[in-house]
């Protein structure tokens, strides 16, 4: 009898500890000093953040998508089930119209919804957590200028136990740490800007890295390419291992090639990007040339990393 009590108490303790460990973190309004929004910067963050690529009303014909209508609804396939992207238009009932600034910062930095529940990391807050506070707030201000669109996306279709939001708290203990971007003082301002854009709002690693069985990026192979997170095709290695011996012509991409590619989709072979990268370039083509150059300068400086091998051609 005693033994049973002890075991029950131990289990209870473990559960309580897990419960505490997985409490969704939030950012209180008191943590936000006074700030005047910079809408131009907000638009830049919107573009490099790629918000429209997931959150705009889907259309079979990508060229017909209205980037300002963020009703959500896109289905994102994953190994865990299908996620349905939510409405982030300023609609007060179905979107973020009723959110406070602190709610929005909480979502991007902590992956916690304004109801205080964990957001699934299909929303790449693992990257957005590195965004600077002013940039997040400017982005929020910009989003609020877009048209409100009504309609909620359907609920995610996930297999058990992946649909248990509380468990994402454990995932976060393992994989969400870092906080806002830290400058490297030994590098140039351009490099730092590129490092910030790539690792923060640009969230490039989220596609260009392999993931483990829990769906987290394999840190030692960051940027080394892998299967596309939505299961369609392969995303290339963009460390020097991939970019210095590229394609059967063994071409070496220069920073200028990368910056140009992010503008018009043209690769050094004179061909034009296809597949999912076209959507990314729709975003990066809207940045300043200086920001594209900064991204390129950072990418060419990445340490060479061998990633997983793509499946053999039939």
């Amino acid at each position, binding site marked *: 009898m005693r033994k049973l009590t002890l075991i029950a108490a131990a289990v209870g303790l473990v559960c309580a500890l897990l419960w505490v460990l997985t409490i969704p973190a939030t950012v209180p309004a008191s943590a936000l000093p006074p700030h005047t929004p910079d809408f131009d910067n907000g638009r830049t963050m919107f573009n490099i953040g790629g918000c429209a690529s997931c959150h705009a009303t889907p259309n079979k014909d*990508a060229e017909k998508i209205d980037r300002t209508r963020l009703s959500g609804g896109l289905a994102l396939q994953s190994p865990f089930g299908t996620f349905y992207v939510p409405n982030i238009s300023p609609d007060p009932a179905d979107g973020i119209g009723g959110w406070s600034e602190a709610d929005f910062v909480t979502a991007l930095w902590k992956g916690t919804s304004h109801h205080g529940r964990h957001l699934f990391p299909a929303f790449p807050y693992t990257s957005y957590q590195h965004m600077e506070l002013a940039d997040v707030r400017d982005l929020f201000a910009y989003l609020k200028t877009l048209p409100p669109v009504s309609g909620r996306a359907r609920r995610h279709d996930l297999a058990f136990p992946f649909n248990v939001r509380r468990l994402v708290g454990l995932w976060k203990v393992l994989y969400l740490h870092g906080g806002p971007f830290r400058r490297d003082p030994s590098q140039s301002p351009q490099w730092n800007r590129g490092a910030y854009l790539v690792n923060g709002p640009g969230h490039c690693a989220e596609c260009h890295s392999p993931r483990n069985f829990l769906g987290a990026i394999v840190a030692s192979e960051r940027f080394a390419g892998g299967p596309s997170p939505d299961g369609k095709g392969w995303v290339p290695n963009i460390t020097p291992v991939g970019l210095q011996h590229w394609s059967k012509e063994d071409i070496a991409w220069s920073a200028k090639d990368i910056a*140009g590619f992010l503008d018009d*989709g043209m690769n050094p*072979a004179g*061909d034009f990007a*296809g597949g999912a990268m076209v*959507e990314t370039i729709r975003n990066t083509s809207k940045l300043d040339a200086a920001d594209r150059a900064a991204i390129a300068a950072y990418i060419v400086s990445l340490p060479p990393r061998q990633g997983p091998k*793509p*499946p053999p051609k039939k």
Partner: protein
Amino acid sequence: MIRTVFAVAAVALGVTAAIAQQDPIAARKALMKANGDQGKIGAAMTKGEAPFDLEKAHKVFATFEDAAAKAPALFPENSTDQPTADDPYSASPDIWQNLEDFKARFAKFGADAKAADASVKDLESFKAAFANIGKNNCGGCHEKYRLKKS
């Protein structure tokens, strides 16, 4: 001299037609490869790595026009292809689900290339026309209809 040119052109035309009849997949890959080769030339001029040459600029756009005119006929039913060791690209099955849109894109590609051919006169006009075609014609179609196996 001119008769030789005509003779060679006639033979080339005949050979291309013959290949097209027998092997639309090879023929369309050849057209796209020609586009790619011209794309490299255009890219070099755009990026300032090669001096601007008006004749070369015209040839880039003329090649695109040619491809746009010939390609739609080279995608008959049941002509799906698979990536090979030499060529990671293949035609997406979506082409045959959206044949109207697919062919319309070639029509637009041809029209845009023709307009570019008529209007190009210097590096600036070339850059603008080339980038526009690359992004909207090449990129747009490749996004939907070209698959790549890395």
